[in-house]
């Protein structure tokens, strides 16, 4: 295969007082060069842990990557030494975090936080790094950049801070950017601007993008392929078009019907997914979505988790759709 990044059978657990949280279980996905994929699911479904696992940023203890491979340009990141991994982080793979308010160090200037990666990865002098930081801030649309580099995070608004995070992420021209809910914490009006910015920059630099989100609207617009996660596993995977138009897992259907859709002329009644997210310490036997599923049948209690290709490139873990049942009728 010629993928930029391929995650194979990743399993990440957390050891807590209450037991072992199986946050990510046997998850596989890949990203091609220049491609944008989305990991979608509700809070606690394992999408953020998957992303942190790629960069080996899981706190250990309590966390631990139990098994799997993370192949980047064909080499397994999990086998690298810490110093080799350091050269990948920020330089080849970078990350944009969810919380712009807490993700920047409050006592260091924006300029310093931008230039430190440049100094380490691109061997710039501090003067060069400073000039480059100013250029980067301008590139992400921050006005008066030469003044702003001397300021501290608390002088910036949430949206501006997220722009700084984007500038940091692109500063060393990485091959892959992992964006973990980059727009959740900012105003709706700013969300679109930020996403357009990320998309625009990744296209220009031919950077691949993993977009982690619970917002299906974002997925439809920006991602080529989608992985839907539930309870630490991937339950559906396919092109954005397939997943949107012929969703093949009840959870995906639930997600779709709980999102207002502006691209549909008719007013469809929104229906939320009832029940609680699954217990990751004591997982259910059979299909994990069973307690919340509207289509449940007898076989669901026994069925082991497996992804089956139901049409070219479209995979689902639901045994009903695997057997040809159609759960979603296009309106």
């Amino acid at each position, binding site marked *: 295969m010629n993928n930029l990044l391929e995650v194979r059978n990743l399993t990440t657990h957390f050891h*807590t*007082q*209450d037991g072992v949280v199986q946050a990510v279980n046997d998850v596989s996905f890949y990203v091609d060069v220049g491609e944008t994929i989305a990991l979608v699911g509700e809070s606690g479904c394992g999408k953020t842990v998957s992303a942190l696992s790629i960069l080996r940023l899981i706190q250990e203890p309590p966390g631990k990557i139990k098994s799997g491979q993370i192949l980047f340009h064909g080499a397994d990141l999990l086998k690298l030494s810490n110093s080799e991994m350091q050269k990948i982080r920020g330089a080849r793979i970078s990350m944009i975090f969810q919380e712009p308010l807490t993700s920047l160090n409050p006592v260091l200037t924006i300029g310093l936080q931008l230039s430190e990666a440049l100094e380490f990865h691109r061997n710039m002098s501090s003067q060069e790094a400073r000039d480059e930081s100013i250029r980067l801030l301008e590139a992400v649309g921050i006005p008066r950049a030469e003044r702003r580099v001397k300021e501290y995070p608390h002088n910036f608004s949430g949206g501006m801070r997220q722009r700084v995070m984007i500038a940091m992420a692109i500063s060393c021209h990485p091959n892959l950017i992992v964006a973990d809910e980059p727009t959740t914490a900012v105003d709706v009006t700013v969300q679109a601007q930020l996403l357009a910015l990320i998309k625009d920059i990744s296209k220009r630099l031919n950077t691949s993008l993993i977009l982690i989100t619970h917002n299906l609207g974002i997925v439809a617009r920006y991602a080529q392929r989608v992985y839907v996660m539930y309870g630490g596993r991937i339950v559906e995977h396919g092109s954005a078009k397939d997943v949107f138009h012929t969703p093949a897992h009840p959870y995906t259907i639930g997600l779709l019907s709980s999102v207002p859709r502006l691209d549909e002329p008719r007013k469809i009644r929104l229906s939320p997914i*009832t*029940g*609680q997210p*699954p*217990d990751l*310490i*004591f997982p*259910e036997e059979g299909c994990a979505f069973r*307690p*919340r*599923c509207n289509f449940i049948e007898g076989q669901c209690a026994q069925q082991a988790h497996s992804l089956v290709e139901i049409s070219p490139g479209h995979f689902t873990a639901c045994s009903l759709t695997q057997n040809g049942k159609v759960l979603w009728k296009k309106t």
Partner: protein
Amino acid sequence: MSTTTAEAETKTRPHHTLWGDAFIRLRRNKLAVSGAIIILIIAVAAIIVPWVSPYAYDKQDMSAILEGPSRDHPLGTDILGRDVMTRLIYGARTSLAVGLFTQFIVLIIGIPIGAFAGSLGGRADNLLMRFVDVMYAFPDILLIILLRSILGGSIYMLFLAIGLVAWVGVARLIRGQILSLKQRDFVVAARAAGASNLYRTTRLLIPNALGPIIVSVTFNVPRAIFMEAALSYIGIGVDPTIPSWGTMVRDGFDILFASPYVILFPAVAIAILMLSFTFLGDGLRDALDPRLRK
């Protein structure tokens, strides 16, 4: 559907009340448990000592002066031939009395003032906080000494002097707790439902601030005990005829080279009692801190 999940959860993860949960966590903490046991042993010994000790604390035996530890006197005798062990346990009475009664005074003064400053806010609150600031600038042991010379030499006045200085800490704690609790939803809900100010303060706010109060008392008791010992050591604490660890240290200091154990035992006793309270206090704080709840 959702009920099955809820049932499954109650089966696998039993639910505890805050206090039950805290107690379980406290019991798991070995240091806290041993601290509590030592305090308990000292307290029981201090209570029953008049009935079980073969010696009176002030009984002098001129034929047995400054003896080392023996079968008759497990910890030896002091310069007046008094049994050190008996005096040590009577000293624990003084220490525990100081610890308890000062905290009593502290709570009686501190809780209402802190509670009303916190719930009324505004000018009353401002005034209290400024006063607290000034008190923090005042070296407390000096103030206690000063109060001591005004209030006179009885042990009750010593309680009062320490209590009068220490209450500001509790008042500030209560005020802070109440200010943060005020923002919490259940209090806002009670307010929306028309509960009176007094009701909210006494029924909702104070019970919820109880955890931090218990922790602060556990840390303040040894502080008061230390104050008494230090003052008695200097000679402005309890009356020299009352056995106290501080006066014993003072007596032992003069014969440090001749019979070092006379000073060693009370010094070690102070250290052990303070350590026990700290272990217990640390344990209580960890057990009651809801931020650590998973």
